């Protein structure tokens, strides 16, 4: 699959901690704790103690300014050789995918032989910011040269200034939450409540079944007493999901379809994926699950409503598939990140739509049909949860494991992100 003169970037394996609903099991754990623990589990799984890796890239969407060197500091907390460099990445919910994709490229080009890519996010330990007024006063006091100047500055503080500002998850340019944006898109594509609930139910069932058959035994390491994703509801039913009231798009009245169950919960968690060249993997007696073939970033103009906020992967996929001369029928498995059930369904409808593919993607015909039995076969974000930057690593490691032992079979990944962005990727089993 890969272009000539570049070597394969091999996915060796992954590790993540179980994902936890915000303010639950990891309420007292910060990003650095979670990322360090995840890396420690990865090091233990593959015996990487004392090894100097090419580089480690990870990131967090919700990040304290004190964690400016989050990934490097986390690496220093592991048994990896401290001479292993690290850097932080951030591309909203696509952070993990961007970290892994860019590292795969470095390996393909021969710049590095090994790497870890991943991400972490904590809603429970999100940075709380002081008001701009208070910050202004504090900075003024900091610049003051005399005590009286300092006191004068500080005397301007009023009780109202002390109210903390919680980090916003609304789109800065529209003021709408991601859910409200998605509700508009879902309505435009005519996505029904029933198909969203079915997708959500399948996510929980598939994830629970994967746990039960031990699929995650070598993908997940427990953390703080949590063994499985605590958002997972293995006993959920369509009846129960059907009783929930809409959470987004309420102004649509009867036509509102998005509930708390078919939308992803806010979650804490971390993930990491070990990558290497073929030679490096062989030299260290490590498994070769799959090759990272290609990835593509995309963005859409959502601000004036020309396209839905979370539809960027539709465009990225079109370019990526064309470059690789592939259609959706060519993929053994598809992993479409379930930001919302309707996100997955809208992307699928777009790719299957002759009209959309011709008019918006500039293609001759639709990109193919998507076999639902190959979609998110081990569950996805609706069940597992979605610690923003950690989702990419979860998907890449799980899909690579599913494709292992099926040489040449292809897997497709789509992850949407805030700001009208997204990433798609292709991996190939070996």
């Amino acid at each position, binding site marked *: 699959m890969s272009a000539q003169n570049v070597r394969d970037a091999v996915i060796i394996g992954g590790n993540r901690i179980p994902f936890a609903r915000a303010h639950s099991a990891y309420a007292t754990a910060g990003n650095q704790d979670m990322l360090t623990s995840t890396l420690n*589990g990865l*090091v*233990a799984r593959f*015996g990487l103690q004392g090894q100097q890796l090419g580089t480690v890239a990870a990131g967090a969407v919700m990040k304290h300014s004190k964690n400016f060197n989050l990934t490097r500091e986390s690496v220093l907390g592991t048994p990896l050789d401290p001479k292993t460099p690290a850097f932080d990445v951030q591309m909203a919910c696509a952070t993990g995918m961007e970290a892994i994709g860019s590292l795969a490229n470095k390996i393909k080009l021969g710049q590095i032989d090994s790497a870890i890519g991943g991400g972490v996010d904590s809603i429970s330990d999100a940075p709380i910011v002081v008001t701009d007024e208070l910050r202004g006063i504090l900075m003024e006091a900091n610049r003051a040269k005399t005590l009286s100047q300092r006191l004068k500055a500080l005397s301007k503080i009023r009780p109202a200034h002390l109210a903390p500002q919680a980090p916003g998850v609304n789109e800065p340019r529209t003021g709408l939450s991601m859910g409200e944006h998605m509700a508009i898109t879902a309505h435009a594509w005519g996505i029904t409540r029933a198909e969203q609930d079915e997708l959500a139910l399948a996510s929980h069932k598939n994830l629970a079944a994967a746990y039960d058959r*031990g699929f995650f*035994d*070598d993908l997940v*390491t*427990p*953390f703080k007493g949590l063994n499985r994703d605590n958002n997972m509801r293995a006993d959920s039913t369509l009846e129960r999901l059907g009783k929930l009231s809409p959470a987004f798009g309420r102004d649509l009245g009867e036509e509102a379809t998005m509930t708390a169950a078919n939308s992803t919960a806010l979650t804490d968690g971390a993930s990491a994926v070990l990558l290497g060249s073929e030679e490096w993997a062989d030299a260290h007696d490590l498994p070769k699950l799959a090759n990272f073939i290609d990835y593509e970033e995309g963005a859409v103009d959502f601000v004036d409503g020309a396209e839905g906020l979370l539809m960027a992967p539709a465009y990225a996929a079109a370019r990526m598939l064309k470059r690789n001369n592939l259609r959706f029928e060519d993929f053994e498995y598809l992993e479409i990140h379930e930001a919302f059930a309707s996100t997955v369904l809208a992307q699928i409808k777009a790719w299957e739509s002759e009209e959309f593919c011709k008019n918006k993607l500039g293609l001759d015909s639709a990109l193919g049909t998507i076999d639902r039995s190959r979609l998110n076969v081990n569950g996805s974000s609706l069940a597992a949860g979605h610690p923003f930057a950690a989702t990419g690593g979860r998907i890449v490691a799980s899909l690579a494991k599913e494709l292992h032992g099926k040489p040449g079979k292809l897997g497709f990944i789509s992850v949407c992100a805030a700001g009208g962005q997204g990433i798609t990727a292709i991996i190939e089993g070996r």
Partner: protein
Amino acid sequence: MPKDLYTDFANTGFGRTLTKNLGLPQPARLRRHRPGQPLARGPVVVLGTTEASAALAERMLGWGLDVRRHIGPKEKVAAVVACFDSVSTPAQLSEVVLELGSLLKQLMPSGRVITVFRDPTGTHDPAVRAARSAVQGLTRSTAHEMRAGGTANGIVLADSLDASAPGAAGALRFLLSGRSAFVSGQFISVDTVNGALPQDWDRPLRDQVAVVTGAARGIGASIARVLRRDGASVILVDIPAAGEQLAAVANEVSGTALQLDITTQDAGERILAHATQHYGRLDIVVHNAGITRDKLLANMDDARWNSVIAVNIESQLRMNRAFLASELFNSDAHGGSGMGPRIVSLASTSGIAGNRGQTNYAASKAGVMGMVAATSAQMASRHGTINAVAPGFIETEMTAKIPFATREVARRLNSLNQGGLPVDVAETISFLASPQAGGTSGLTLRVCGQNLVGA
């Protein structure tokens, strides 16, 4: 780990006087193995003029020990090796026994008495067998009489085995050393000339690959650490739910963590696949994982009974079938090592003596001993060995939950007047897994400080 405050107190100056005057137990600080430390801290006296006495004395001289045939009445003695391998009637024991007795008061703290004799079951002659069996009795009683952390154990040589066999030297060195600190009143049988002596006695497991189940905590974690210290690469297995601790231990010993429920049907195959992928070989299997679900038999339910049987014995039987069917678990195939594969299983003194409320646990652990005895022949065909270790009262998180008074009694109920440490069990396992233990197979060796239970 619970703190043994009594032992701490009894080892202070005042505590020593007080416990002595009141006739209370006097637990000593046991001398435990540290790499690089001398094998013995003083002279080793060899008693008896037999074939074994000559072979073992020569061996010990080769190790640089201060070996004596006779010693002055004032001199301190680190160990006495009493050889009875030529006795053919009980009347012949007296000379060596009385000489041994006269030396006991000269023994240093954590001193050693090691008897050497021929296997009683190797003869049909009533007088010979009586004499050999008598050595067992006198060894056990001597162990009860030892003071200040001293132990007494025996080496049982097969009837026609040359005493210069590596297995005899390996057992002797183990019993002399701090590795056997909590082993007393026990016998190590050496049946064959198999095995090899290591080039470096501090790293006997060099280049070996070992798997330890239940390695996330307690005795299992200690086994992983000791096997690593002794040179092995370690695969650490535990249930997925114990993964966080497992990863921490794996990183500590530079091993690889394998999250796996050993009751899974293909657990053995998955361990083999992991070993193949990461190491290309598998030499040592330590079946340590086990659970307790105590209940009086009258109140026993099927969940408690079945889970203990499934984890503690059925899983081992199933995994062993997989290992024995595999070409990988045949370390002679790697050439040069001079040792075949090793299996060491965790039994328990409960499996020997039984324990109220532990019909399920005792059944499973007695089962382990039976399995080990029966698997010995299969291991022999690949020059390997299988043995069991039966711990007595060991200071772990599990025994820390025993009520204080019960725990205090359990601790003092052995010849060393204290509980053992996880490392004591681990040292014995590492010994049985080593090339120098190649002559010993099918044995259940107790690490219990000569606990009165199940003696």
